């Protein structure tokens, strides 16, 4: 039983990190219909921002987090400005391949300038352990879960209640009418990339603290997993990212716990495929009716 609770906590931790990153994928997808493959690398960049802020400026956890979120938001907006905006009228596939190019560029640029070795992330928190029904919980795990949850609730509030959130939903509904309503598409897209990137940076720092090494290629595997989480829940849907992220976290942790750990990725993908076959547009997605 205590083993089960332990795994449950691990799954919750991994799942909320996936969910945080998946949110960025799903928001950009909802607004532009673009799979932003560079998103995993913004997650990586966020971790590195956090690393340098903590090491060089010696800030504590909260200021580090906020400054890194800001820098990642700037990076995300800059990428959109330089690489995606000129292609907004181009076919979708061109945008996707450009995103792949940006992704490769970010990874390899980081590697070329900072080196490919793993760096251990500075301790921003004195890790303490608590006993919970026979399992041990660390304050770090609680922090990860709480921070993710708070940010997701905040995002929900922004999207549902604020003007910019309404504008975002309007964009994903109908771009032409949006312009007639006097809303600038560019502003909405900027806000989307900014928020998504800031969330990814948060995830980057949380991962840096939990698995205390970071390297330039850390965004690839996590990025793909988060993308899969977004699709699993129904891409374009904010609740979908949360559901998909948590499910993927649970599946991975429990597949690793019950089966030889080398099968972990294989099982995760097998379940993903089964879910998509039963619900082809994701768990929360509505069926798409195609018209001629």
């Amino acid at each position, binding site marked *: 039983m205590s083993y089960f609770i332990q795994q449950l906590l691990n799954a919750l931790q991994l799942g909320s990190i996936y969910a945080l990153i998946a949110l960025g994928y799903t928001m950009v997808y909802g607004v532009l219909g673009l799979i932003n493959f560079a998103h995993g690398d913004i997650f990586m960049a966020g971790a590195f921002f956090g690393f340098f802020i903590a090491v060089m400026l010696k800030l504590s956890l909260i200021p580090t987090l906020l400054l890194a979120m800001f820098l990642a938001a700037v990076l995300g907006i800059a990428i959109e400005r330089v690489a995606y905006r000129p292609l907004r009228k181009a076919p979708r596939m061109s945008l996707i391949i450009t995103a792949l190019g940006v992704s490769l560029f970010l990874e390899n640029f980081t590697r070329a300038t900072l080196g490919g070795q793993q760096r251990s992330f500075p301790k921003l928190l004195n890790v303490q352990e608590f006993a919970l029904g026979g399992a041990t919980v660390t304050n770090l795990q609680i922090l990860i879960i709480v921070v993710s949850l708070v940010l997701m609730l905040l995002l929900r509030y922004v999207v549902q209640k604020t003007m910019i959130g309404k504008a975002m939903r309007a964009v994903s509904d109908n771009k032409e009418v949006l312009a007639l309503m006097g809303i600038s598409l560019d502003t909405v897209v900027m806000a989307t990339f900014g928020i998504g990137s800031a969330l990814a940076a948060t995830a980057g720092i949380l991962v840096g603290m939990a698995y205390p090494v970071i390297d330039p290629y850390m965004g690839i595997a996590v990025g793909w997993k988060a993308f899969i989480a977004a699709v699993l829940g129904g891409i374009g849907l904010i609740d979908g990212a949360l559901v998909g992220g948590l499910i993927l976290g649970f599946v991975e942790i429990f597949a690793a716990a019950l089966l030889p750990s080398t099968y972990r990725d294989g099982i995760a993908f097998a379940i993903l*495929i089964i879910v998509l076959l039963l619900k082809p547009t994701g768990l929360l997605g509505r069926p798409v009716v195609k018209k001629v």
Partner: protein
Amino acid sequence: MSKSRSKRLGFWLVILALGVGMEALGQFEIIDGYVMQVIELIGINIILVASLNLINGFLGEFAIGHAGFMALGAYISAIGTVKFHLPFVVALLVGGLLTAGVAYLIGIPAFKTFGDYLAVITLGFNMIIVNLLNNIEYVGGPRGMVGLPKSTNFLWVFATTILTLVILRNLVYSNYGRVWIAIRENVIAAEMMGINVNRAKLKAFAIAGFFAGLAGALWGHMLQYINPSSFTYLKSTDMLVMLYLGGLGSLTGSVLGATLMTGLLEVLRDFGVWRMVISPLILLIIMLTRPLGLLGNREPRFVVPKEPKAAEEVSHNVPAAR
């Protein structure tokens, strides 16, 4: 008629001269072994990219797990030559055919979805294939297989590449190709025309799988060593980059994209780690200036069959959709 026949003869003569000429240059070491291997790699990449183009360019789906099929071809053929001591040509064909079979089987569930969901499923199968190969001790698990015979040489790659391109070109301009393009342009309209969409998609998927399997087999017997980590999504990403660089729906574009990207990575080898920074930058600049890739979906005139003849064929034939 005789004019077109002599043109066709001319084409094959040029190809033959090119193949024999290059082989001779390699034999007399005017082109050194390293450059020859790069040329072989270009050929293999052309096969991969052209077959991926069949799905992504002509059928209009978005498959991003092509490296999985390459892995199957490489492993099956390696089992053939290493464990059963089959002749290379047999192993090559078995690798291609079995990969086509697996592609067909994967396609049955995969094509129940479309768009980005299909992308995720193809990627998922790629990951599952790599994961299984990592766990099967018979093929060496994560260590992979060593001691493959050095069977791949320039002539093998050259002949397979040319055959792949000719077969794909003929398919694309046949009734099959028209069916695929109809599906790409409008699925529902294609269905209304009496096309069995699912069956047509599965055919394309199996054919693409066959050629990807061949390419994998050639690749394995070129390097004489294969392991699962060579076939992850990174490999699939490489193929996508080459495909979109050249242009979707253009076989000449696939040749151009694969040649340029493979060549570029070799030329930039002196730049060390910066090589991997420069090549995506070049890709970005090309995509920003030519969003449809270098060739878009155009083909040079010698690739496209004569129009009046093609029109006549269409008017006489119901799309072959079985």
